[in-house]
Every structure is written in structure tokens, then in C-alpha cells.
């Protein structure tokens, strides 16, 4: 199963490093990353493969959200199916 991690907030040093470190810790493979910076707002979307994740999906999602909060960022972790179903005919 794949999940989308979306990170939104004020740009700061080390966002990608911190998020991907947590992914690595739980054996979630980062498959793709895109990021844009509009003015000083940072938006990153990351596709991760969590089929070999070492913990439950909920635990990983919680950890990512917590890391986001520490950097004043919103982190959303959602199953990729929601985007596939909403945006593809």
C-alpha cells in the first residue's frame, strides 16, 4: 500500500530531512517527492510505499504529524486511493 504525505507551512531548513528520516526509521520507502515554494509557503508532497513498514500505518502517521507540529507545519498522511479516486475518471 502507498500513502501520500503532504507537508504545508512556512519554509524552514531541514523539512525534507526530518520527514524522510522518520520514513526511513519505519522502513517506509520514499518513492517520489515534489515540492514547491510559493512566496514563503512551502508545499511538499511525497509518495511512500508502506507495504514493508515496520509499524502500523497509524503509528507512522502519528509520528509524521508530530514532527510537523514541532516545525510548525501541517502534515497530512493519506492513503493514495483517495486521490486516485477523486481525480481520475
Amino acid at each position, binding site marked *: 500500500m*502507498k500513502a501520500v504525505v503532504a507537508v504545508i507551512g512556512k519554509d524552514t531548513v531541514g523539512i525534507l530531512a526530518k520527514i524522510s528520516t522518520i520514513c526511513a526509521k519505519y522502513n517506509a520507502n520514499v518513492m517520489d517527492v515534489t515540492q514547491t515554494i510559493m512566496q514563503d509557503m512551502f508545499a511538499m508532497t511525497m509518495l511512500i510505499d508502506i507495504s514493508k513498514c515496520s509499524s502500523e500505518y*497509524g503509528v507512522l*502517521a502519528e509520528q509524521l504529524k508530530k514532527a510537523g507540529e514541532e516545525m510548525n507545519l*501541517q502534515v497530512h498522511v*493519506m*492513503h493514495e486511493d483517495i*486521490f486516485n*479516486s477523486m481525480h481520475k475518471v
Partner: protein
Amino acid sequence: MTTMLSSNDILETIKMIQEENLDIRTITMGISLLDCIDSDIDRSCTKIYEKMMRVAQNHVKTGEEIEKRYGIPIINKRLSVTPIAMLAAAAKGSPVKFARTLQKVAEGTGVNYIGGYSALVHKGFSAGDRELIESIPEALSETTNVCSSVNVGSTRAGINMDAVKLMGQVILDSAKVTADDHCFGAAKIVVFCNAVEDNPFMAGAFHGVGEPDVVLNVGVSGPGVVRAALAKMPDADISQVAEVIKRTAFKITRMGQLVGTEAGKILGVPFGIVDLSLAPTPAVGDSVAHILEEMGLESCGAYGTTAALAMLNDAVKKGGVMASSHVGGLSGAFIPVSEDAGMIDAVNAGSLGLEKLEAMTAVCSVGLDMVVVPGDTPADIISGMIADEAAIGMVNSKTTAVRVIPAIGMKEGDTLEFGGLFGSGPVMKINRFDCSKFISRGGRLPAPLQSLKN
């Protein structure tokens, strides 16, 4: 991205959920109680409790799991059952026992409402129907999570005017016995014409006899998303506006379809339908009235409101139909007054009255919904409102409903507070001219001709 997900799409979805109040309004499990019928009412209640606890024990938990996995709020987890009048028909004793059993199930499963304390009497009363209808005020005052509905008319059968008269009194009595609880009893009853068997929304949900043993129906919501989409195109013509609504409805419905099929898989229950409704909440930005105003009306209720609503309702259906394998329920824009911040403002500003609301119900789902009327409104006047709404539904082959709340001890201009998703309702002005002679005639209003349409 490699999987062809675009980050714009991802951010759009997150914005819809975070800022525009997109959510799954309800996942409702319909449960047939036909195998719980028994001539002994206590035995029947035991069977109901056992069956419902068995099939619905994981309903709430599954809803919460899906919320986490997809990051979409699922506001309500609910159950609906076979109209209880059918069980009351076989059993002797007060049907209120069934209501108490449903209440116990609600508490045991953690669902917030169970619908189906219902009777279908559009052509006449059969055994159990009258007893059930007369017990509604008591049942609703003794329970907190049980909802009731009565179908009094249909396009094929006409309108049962005896039932219309009875329901005016039942609504008034339900408000009176719950007067110290915001008259909330009356908010838990819906009187229908052309009731549907797979509606997931309360208070009118029941599990029709044509349905499978257990089924899962989903209701989506997203007035805020539609409004935000329209706000981006202030100068577009109406064709373009309709197009954007269709596209937005498609996305919202796809989400409902995904949640319904996933929940069905986890629970081992067949997925029934997505109800493509725009259901408002009192939250800022989650209003159907505000969509109409975004189209260019100063206030909901102004001339043009009915036309704007007709277009909105139709575009939502057109967009949603292709997004789901099965569409059903009430499907359309809801216009409950107390649950919609824009509607409340429109009533308070004097631009929206009961007459305009009635006209609006002719072009949308569902009817006079969450309308608060003065506490001294005579029962026959409520029956008159029911008769008019039922006639609109009957003639136009659509579902219409009445959910009015007489605010006991209050008069026009006061406000009845419910709190939560139910909001607060301004007490509306009613036409007090007498209709009791017409209502008291009883009998059946014949079914309308389906040709020579003018």
C-alpha cells in the same frame, strides 16, 4: 509523480477537507428486522437486540479506521432498520418497547442515531401502523438516539389524508413532551411523500423491504467545496457555473464511493448507494444558501433563488451520477433552515419565508426541513403544511418531506437553540388562516395523472 498523482490534486483535496468542510456526512448501515418478527413483543425485542449487536458491532470502529486511513472525517455512523410498524403488526403490546430496544442498540454500538421507528401508510393503515404512529411522541421522549418517519403519500397511491391529520398532532405532541429539551422530539420525525428505501440521512432513514438483509449506504457532503469553486469564477455565465458544480460533485461523490466500498469490504456487508446530497451544517462556509448567494443573489429567498437552486440540484446529480456505481437515497441539495447559517441569516433578514421555502422544495431535495414554527401553531395547520408538501412531491414524482418543530412557549422572531449539527432555528411566521375543515375531511387524495403534463 511516477504514479501520475499531481501535487496540485493532492493539495486541492487537502484544502477541500481542511478549509472547505468536505466530509463524509454519514455511513449508515441498513439492517433488515424481518427475521425478528415475533408474536411475543419481548421475544421480538430480544431478537432485534441480538441481530443488530451482531451485525453492527464493528460499524463505528470501521468508520474510524477509514477516517484515519484516508484522512477524511466521517461525521456520523448510523443504523437504519425495517419500519418498526411491520414488527408491531405481529406483536401485541406498546411499540415503545421497540424504541427502547433500538436505544439500547445505539448505546451498545456507539452509533449516534438509529432510524426506522417508521410506518408506511400512503394508501392506508394496516395492523400496527396506527399504534406505532400514536406512540411516536412517547417513543421519542423516552429515547435520545431513535428517529421516526412516516410516509403519507406517493405518486402512485395519492395522499392518505387521515395520516396527514394524525401527523400534525403527532408532531405537536412530540414537541410538547420534549418542551424542556428544545422541543427536540419534533426534530426527530420526518413526514414523507415518496419516501425512499435507501436513504442514509436522518431523521428519515429506514431500511426498505426491497433491500438486502444488511447494506451500507453513504451520504456525502460538501456545500463549502462547491461554494469555493464558484468563488473562483465571479464573472462566468450560468452554463460554466453548472459545469464547475458538476465537476466538483464528481470529486465529492468519488470520495463517498471509495469510503462506501472500503467500509463494506471491511465489514463484509454489500455497498448499497452513495447519496449525492449537499448537506449543510451550521459551520461557517458549509451552507447551501451561501452557494446560491455566490451565484449572485443578495440573500437566499430573493427572486431567482428557485432557479438557482434548480440548477444547483440538477448539476450535483449530473456530476455525481457518473462518479458512483450506484446512486440513491435523497440525492440533491438539502435546505434545512436551522442547520444552514445562510438560511438562518436569510430568515432573520426577512428575505426568506415559508412560502418561498415551499417553492424551493419543488426543485430540490427534500422539503420543509428543520423549520421552527410558533409553539401555539394548531395541529391542523401543521397538517396543512404536510398536505401541501406531500402534494408537491406527489405531482412532481419526487420525495418531499416535512420536519417542522413547534417551539413550545415561543413566538415568531424568537430563536430555538438545538446546538451541534442541528444549529438554531428562528421561529418563522406562519399563515394562520384556518384549514381544519379541509384537513378533517379525511379520506384519500387520489393519485395524479401521469400524462397531459402542464
